[in-house]
């Protein structure tokens, strides 16, 4: 099972919002940086990896990870459907776990490893899950699709890691990739075009190949 990411304190954090930070010893805690300098900024610098590429950004603190990807890095494969965690279109993998990128601030992701739909495959070199979605027509308008695919990839990992679900009959048993399990676990990704039945077929094919 994966464990939550514990943020590493890096020297880069010390640069937050102050030009004086170069004078602060690298061992100082980041909150102390603000306390000592008294400088308060509505912006922060942050760096994280996106699809294996290191990114350094200076962002308005309010910028969500989703908007950082879409508006600042122009990685628009990750979609904004509701901006409130109610649809799943913005699903990305952070440190291997699927999350809603609309409900997390970019500045909270110092040192994170972010994988977006663009990092899974390209039109000429599709990831197995992407290819299965094409084969099974697991989409229509395509807007929820990157979120569905990112979610599906991580979801199969969660089953493999033994994480139970609402529909697991026995809490203490190891879950299987059943139709009911897949449907429950994918329920955080809404598809208004209603491609669910086909998405399920696509995921089942990939899961079968992995097994």
């Amino acid at each position, binding site marked *: *099972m994966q*464990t*939550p990411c*514990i*943020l590493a*304190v890096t020297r880069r*954090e010390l640069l*937050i*919002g102050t030009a004086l930070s170069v004078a602060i010893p690298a061992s100082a*805690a*980041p*909150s*102390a*940086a*603000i*306390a000592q300098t008294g400088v*308060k*900024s*509505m912006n*922060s610098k942050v760096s994280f990896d996106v699809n294996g590429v290191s990114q350094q950004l200076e962002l*308005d*603190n*309010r910028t*969500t990870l989703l908007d950082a990807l879409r508006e600042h890095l122009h990685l628009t494969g990750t979609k904004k459907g509701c*901006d*409130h*965690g109610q649809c*799943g279109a913005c*699903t990305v993998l952070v440190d291997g*776990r*699927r*999350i*809603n990128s*609309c*409900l*997390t*601030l970019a*500045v*909270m992701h110092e040192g994170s490893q972010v994988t977006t739909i663009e990092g899974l495959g390209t039109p000429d070199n599709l990831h197995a899950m992407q290819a299965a979605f094409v084969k099974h027509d697991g989409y229509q308008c395509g807007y929820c699709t990157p979120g569905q695919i990112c*979610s599906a990839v*991580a*979801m199969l990992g*969660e089953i493999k*890691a*033994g*994480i*139970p*679900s*609402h529909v*697991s009959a026995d*809490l*203490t048993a190891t879950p299987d990739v059943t139709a009911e399990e897949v*449907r*429950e*676990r*994918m*329920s*955080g*990704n*809404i598809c208004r075009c209603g491609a669910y039945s086909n998405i399920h077929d696509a995921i089942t094919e990939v899961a079968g190949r992995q097994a």
Partner: protein
Amino acid sequence: MKSFTYERAASPAEAAAAASRVPDAKFIAGGTNLLDLMKLEIETPGHLIDVNGLALDKIEPTNDGGLRIGALVRNTDLAADARVRRDYGVLSRALLAGASGQLRNKATTAGNLLQRTRCPYFYDTNMPCNKRKPGSGCAAIGGFSRQHAVLGASEACIAVHPSDMAVAMRVLDATVETVKADGTTRSIAIADFHRLPGDTPQEETVLEGGELITAVTLPKPVGGTHIYRKVRDRASYAFALVSVAVVAQRDGTGRVALGGVAHKPWRLEAADAQMPRGAKAVHERLLADAKPTSDNAFKLPLVRRTLASALAEAKG
């Protein structure tokens, strides 16, 4: 969303101290509810203290045979923990019935307890709401109130607490551990943690300004059959219309808590005492003071039936 300054806290005590220094500071952990509300300017902190770096992400045994769950343990990890699955099944079930896989991966134990209501009038800043803007009135009373409280509501507010996890914590007699700005710590019984709305629906818990939850502690396992039944319109990714948490013992004793019916998880020790007499006796006591609206009167028979079924299942 209003502009805010941002810092990462280095220790729980320091986080609490930082929060007390800045009057409109908030802690942020998972962020899944806070950012949702900040986007709508229902929450408007001027300073965010990111507590994700604090080492509060462990689940450890306590000296008396219970479990101490760090405040930052993600919902997924808590639900998947082998000890929780084995000894506190109702908690694992409640967590897994909530939200979605993505949200559970981010949402934390402490944050789940601090979730704010999903009342649609609370969420719409054009509408009067005593919880969001004290004294402005309550648009839900006399409005669309299908999801709202049938127990413990007031003339100021009929909102419900949306958490599933908190209902299980209540039935398990969990304890909330905190640290205050002055570095002192305290333990709060879950029964005392959430408030009923009364005249001050904006005050949802007994936490003081700057007080930080560090852990939630479960007493040693009580055994029995653990059941969590959540009733909702769609099959997943929806808040409860009602939910029922049960821990039932072979001798007929046990405990019951309800979700989706009040401003806090609803449990009455007097109702628990009725367990040996059967479901009817329990729900009559639990729902004795119910005051539903015309939109949500169905919650009473729904609780009655769901509870009866759950207790029948527990008997086997």
